């Protein structure tokens, strides 16, 4: 990073001769790090939620053995399976909900706070382009949060499985029967697939729109972000008595991929892998239109940052 200044004498000529040595990905990496320094809640909130969830689960394991005995005698094997995997689905659902909320709040503030506290003048005094900065901010909802949600969910699964197994062992029931309800390869794969399709690629235009508005609005980013959406939805309602636009935005936001990414929706996450339809997802125009719109918003945000100074 600072090799030349360690080895070279401090004269003007040496400065000119030695080309700067910093790889092109370094500024992006450090810019993502700085987002995480500034917004520690991005990872603290999911960790805190996971801890609370785990505490609740721990209490529920005290009655796990009696519930299992009851379930095994009273209901069908499908219902038995449901009752066992329900808390695991709950854990995944919680992390996804957290990921959506964090992405929305982060994006709505991302390009606003540096203007508000005038630190944009400091960031712009360094050799980091506006494109790098905006891409680093976009990395939070598109890379950091999906990876984080995946890692925390898998960690939760492991701890929950160990806790349950310990409770079952203590009560003298069969751990094997319990473990048989899980597919240890497919569940993580399915989770990853769902996170990438429904919660990363599909809602991309919503996140990029919020990023753009955060770089434009002087205050009340959410109001400015919602205003055009509400306006279009209202006009649609008045003129055609329909509400497609509002539903479309909502579906984008909550990762409701209709039938593009999975043949049977709403059966996440323990259904077998053969329900996923990646090719159909990749072939759906909705995905590509969304990504094109997201890219346009992102480039508009880069341009805005170039022109905008502190508030």
């Amino acid at each position: 990073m600072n090799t030349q200044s360690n080895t070279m004498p401090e004269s003007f000529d040496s400065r000119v001769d030695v080309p700067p040595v910093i790889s092109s990905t370094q500024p992006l990496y450090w810019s993502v790090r700085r987002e995480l320094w500034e917004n520690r809640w991005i990872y603290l909130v999911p960790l805190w939620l996971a801890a609370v969830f785990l505490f609740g689960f721990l209490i529920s394991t005290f009655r796990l053995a009696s519930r299992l005995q009851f379930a095994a005698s009273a209901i069908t094997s499908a219902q038995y399976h449901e009752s066992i995997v329900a808390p695991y689905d709950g854990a995944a659902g919680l992390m996804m909900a957290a990921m959506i909320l964090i992405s929305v709040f982060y994006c709505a503030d991302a390009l606003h706070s540096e203007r508000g506290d005038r630190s944009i003048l400091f960031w712009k005094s360094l050799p980091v382009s506006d494109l790098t900065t905006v891409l680093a901010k976009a990395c939070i909802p598109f890379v950091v949060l999906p990876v984080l949600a995946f890692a925390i969910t898998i960690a939760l699964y492991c701890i929950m499985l160990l806790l349950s197994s310990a409770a079952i062992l203590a009560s003298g029931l069969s751990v094997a029967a319990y473990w048989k309800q899980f597919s240890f390869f497919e569940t993580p794969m399915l989770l990853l697939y769902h996170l990438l399709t429904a919660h990363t690629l599909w809602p991309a235009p919503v996140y990029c729109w919020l990023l753009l508005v955060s770089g434009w609005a002087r205050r009340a980013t959410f109001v400015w972000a919602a205003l055009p959406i509400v306006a279009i939805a209202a006009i649609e309602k008045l003129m055609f008595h329909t509400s497609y636009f509002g539903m479309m935005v909502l579906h984008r936001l909550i990762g409701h991929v209709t039938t593009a990414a999975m043949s049977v929706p709403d059966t996440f996450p323990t259904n077998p892998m053969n329900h996923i339809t990646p090719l159909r997802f990749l072939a759906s125009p909705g995905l590509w239109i969304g990504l094109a719109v997201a890219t346009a918003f992102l480039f508009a945000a880069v341009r805005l940052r170039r022109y905008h100074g502190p508030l």
Partner: protein
Amino acid sequence: MACIEARGLRKAFGATIALDGVDLRVEEGRILGLIGPNGAGKTTALNAILGLTPYQGELRVLGRDPWSERDQLMRDVCFIADVAVLPRWIRVSQALDYVAGVHPRFDRAKAEGFLKKTSIQQSSKVRELSKGMVAQLHLALVMAIDARLLVLDEPTLGLDILFRKQFYDSLLNDYFDRSRTIVVTTHQVEELQHVLTDLMFINHGRIVFACSMEAFESRYAEVTVRPEQIAAGRALRPMHERQVLGRSILLFDGVDRRKLATLGEVHTPSIADLFVALIGNPTDSVSRSEEYEKQGATR
């Protein structure tokens, strides 16, 4: 090659003209003071030089177009906009990490060396530091960057006199090495007088005065005229006259100092005095000069 070269630099915000055809040339190795009243266009000119604002006209900084090549230009240019721009949430160690990560010419050991001389802890957050300490931190970061041009826009605003003195002392002793160029704007001109090599006054978006400090010292002279010599002094056509403690002080441009010595005590005027003489509105020059006198009396 000039460090900064501008020709016909223009910038308007709506109907307000901030820069009205600025021509400017700053050679390498100079310390230029850009002085002007509020709203004269100083910050706009610096923003254009730093690639923070688009402009009309021709501008090259270190041979580059700042607006289209800001990120490359910032490898060779550093700036301190004012003391309040370091993000308040950042830790000192994180600031060092970040600049070391993105800046090819940053010498971390050097920055840490500067910080060791202060009472700043690496684990502190900027919000926990006093204003003076934030300025020290920013200066430590900037001085550890091997830049060719340093731009300072009111770098010491709101700092007490000890910090201000320290700031310019470190800048001169530890940073400036005759190959670097420094451009500075400030309202606290008197502290800069011995630091500068060149001087420029800007008013209403135009450069109204430019000279080197050597020329300034040989060309301008101020005389505290003895009461009986007042008429003789006025006959030499002073560019400005003011009253201090009942005595007249006359400012002359290009008059032989030996001739002036017969009138009274001759000394080099302060930049502020020349500024008032040149830019002070004729109608309110009296009140303005009184203002400066008060400041001068407390100095």
